[in-house]
């Protein structure tokens, strides 16, 4: 068993949830998302982000619009769709479940 694998599995699990929460706060541009997550100590590679965003967009959780800028190519700004909102809601519920469960289990060990 490789610990790194497990760790990355753990991270992978919550990735969509985190991204959606960032976008939920407001229209976001991919590199902004990366910045925010870095600030929250969750390092994510841009290369991981883009496919994820595209998948979410294809699943109609997200939508985007092009914003022209004079310093650079036009950028995609992502925002949550209603369906995405629903999705997010469910994810949050799951997350709460999980945290409670884990807390309960780990407290018994005496470590937290």
């Amino acid at each position, binding site marked *: 068993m490789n610990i790194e694998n497990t760790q990355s599995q753990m991270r992978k699990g919550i990735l969509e949830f985190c991204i959606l929460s960032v976008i939920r706060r407001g229209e976001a541009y991919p590199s902004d998302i990366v910045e925010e997550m870095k600030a929250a100590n969750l390092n994510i590679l841009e290369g991981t982000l883009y496919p994820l965003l595209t998948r979410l967009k294809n699943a109609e959780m997200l939508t985007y619009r092009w914003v022209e800028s004079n310093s650079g*190519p036009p950028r995609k700004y992502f925002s949550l769709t209603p369906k995405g909102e629903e999705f997010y809601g469910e994810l949050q519920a799951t997350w709460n479940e999980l945290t409670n469960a884990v807390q309960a289990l780990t407290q018994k060990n005496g470590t937290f």
Partner: protein
Amino acid sequence: MKKIININFYSRVIPIEETAYEILQQYVDSLRRYFANEEGRDEIISDIENRFSELFDQKLKKGAACITDADVNAIIASMGRPEEFAGEPEQPRASASAGAAGSAAGASGAGGGQQQSYAPHAAEEPRRLFRAANDKVLGGVCAGLANYLKLDPVIVRILFVLITLTWGFGLLLYFVLWIVLPTKSLATSARKRLYRNPDDRVIAGVASGIAAYFHIEVWIPRLIFALPLIVGIFTSVFRNIWWHFFNWGGHIFFDGFGGSLVVAYIVLWIVIPEATTASEKLEMRGEKIDLESIKNTVKSDLETFKGRAKEMGTEMGESFKNMGQQMGTQIRQNVQTFSAEASGAARRHGTGIGHAIGVLFKAFFLCIAGLIAFGLIMGLVGLALSGGGLLDLKSYVLDGFWEDILAWASFILVLVIPVIALLTWLIRRITGMRSKRHYLGYVFATLWIIGLISFVILAGMVINNFRARAHSEEQFALVQPSTGNLVVKARQMVHRDYYDQEDWWFGNEWRRGWRRNDFFYTLNADSIQLNTVQIKVLRSDDSAYHVRILRGSLGGSSNSALDRARQISFPVTQTDSVLQLPAGFTINREQKFRNQQVIVVVYIPVGKKILLDNSVGRYDWFNVNVGRSHINWEDGRNDYSSEYDDEGFSLENNFYWNSGIQYIMTADGLKPVNGMGKYGERPERPENPERPERKEKKEAPEKSAQPEKSGKSGQPANGSYRYKAPAPKRDADTPVPKSSTMVVLPRPSVATPHKVVAAPHPSPFVLLSSMFI
């Protein structure tokens, strides 16, 4: 100092170092591969590229002159490499390798199913033997076995072929397995696979593929394949000529081994696939497949390709150079894209029966080409070895300055040029040089055609010299022999053994054969002796012997032919009843060789005898037939009708004779005088036919008549010279002798002192053509 190129990247022009651009390209392509099955792949990639462009723009705005390698690498680091991506693509194809850099998830070119340490489906059912549905030449049996045994399918195929060839049951086993095993789409499970290397090939890259697999130098397997074959060819050639030197038995090794290695090479050519994509090339060498190594491979490919493109470019000028480079990179892009896309599907288009048959055809044509080349080389070698002797002869045939020049020109151009071209091609192939300009082929071809044309012209000119015929004739004042028997003898030729100094070069039997085969006898500085003499025996119209001597020659015109004919010196003498003919006649360089011939016509009256000595067997008649017909000896009769023989003599009174046998002329023709007691019995004769006392013994004792066998006693194995005229067969069973002597069997001929090798008469045409060189 690095080259900068400008790229149009999402509608901005970005100056970027060429090497940086390549890095970017490779990254994008690795992304393409990674997302090969992803639904929104293009979009993802365009997003990423967009991001790149934005970052480039920022950098440039900050004052950088151009984008460097470092910049690109930094952006890629922050972007992350595909194998580091945390997000898993939809298909469970590249399994859980996120975060674990270095494993080959991104390189899907290796075919799916790379064994990961943490594969979710690692706990499989116990491995079963299947036939591979996706990797089959015939039925996928070998690939299935290979998958089960975790081997390279190529190796399993080779083993199968070997087993079939040596023990034979491999074929049966294959069919059984084919029927029995179920199919399944299998993934290949070997890391290091045997490929053919298409980049470094002389014929098909088999040797270099093997070298790459075993990590040995390329020339080692090449030598192993080539050496027994070449050595075998040469020793077999030499063995036929100088067999006492080479008859050491080792030829079994070389001949057999060389041949089987050729077969092995062809089998390997069919079976081993070609490494086309970069990842296949890496597999060929057994290197780790990841982005780095792919990058390096692609880079080296690009370098070589660029090198060639550069050469093309420097020649054709600036504009072409740019175009070439752009095309090159574009083509490379396309190839890589294609390889990425094709990786998901069945990987090799190079397998299958069609491929096998194609290879067999290619190998077959290669063999033919090789044989032709070999023949050319051997022809040249033969000419080189014998050329010295033939060079002298050349001046006898060719007349004049122009003919000489043409002869040399055609010889060199027609024969030597293909060999030079071949050698050049071989050397180029082996050393891997590419020809920058392709004009060399055209130059060679043009020269060769010039040579051919000059050869044709030369042939025409020479043939012209042989066109006209003429002959002169005279009557020889013959004293009637007192004994009623005329003996015709020819002088012995005194050989100047000009070939003696080469005696060590050829074996003994060669020398003897040479002596017999020669149509001329001696060659000294200025002249050669010919023995193109024929003796015809006719029935005389009156009761006296007559002798006519006809000398003929060809020439450019009738006059020149007649001149030449008259120049033939053929002094005939008579001593009592022996008609002594010279051994031959001489022609010198001035006269040129023009198929000078002499016919001695002897007329025998009825009731008289004639004996033609074995020495006349030395005469060697041939005709050089140019155009319509040969020398017209008698009254224009050359219509090949059956009433006349080749020389126009009427067959009515023109008779067939064997030397060494005494004949008597009857009203019906020549009949042998002496019989023999038993078949095979020979009359006593002294060994040397030249000794004078032989004259008496020639009139051999008459013996009692025996029922005759056929007049033609088959090809006498020794000694006697048979006059080759188509003659009506003397019916051996004619019972009644019409003259006073008895009709007897022809005696088998006398053994001559020399052991004669029954050499075939050299075809005049072969000799003629050899004269042309």
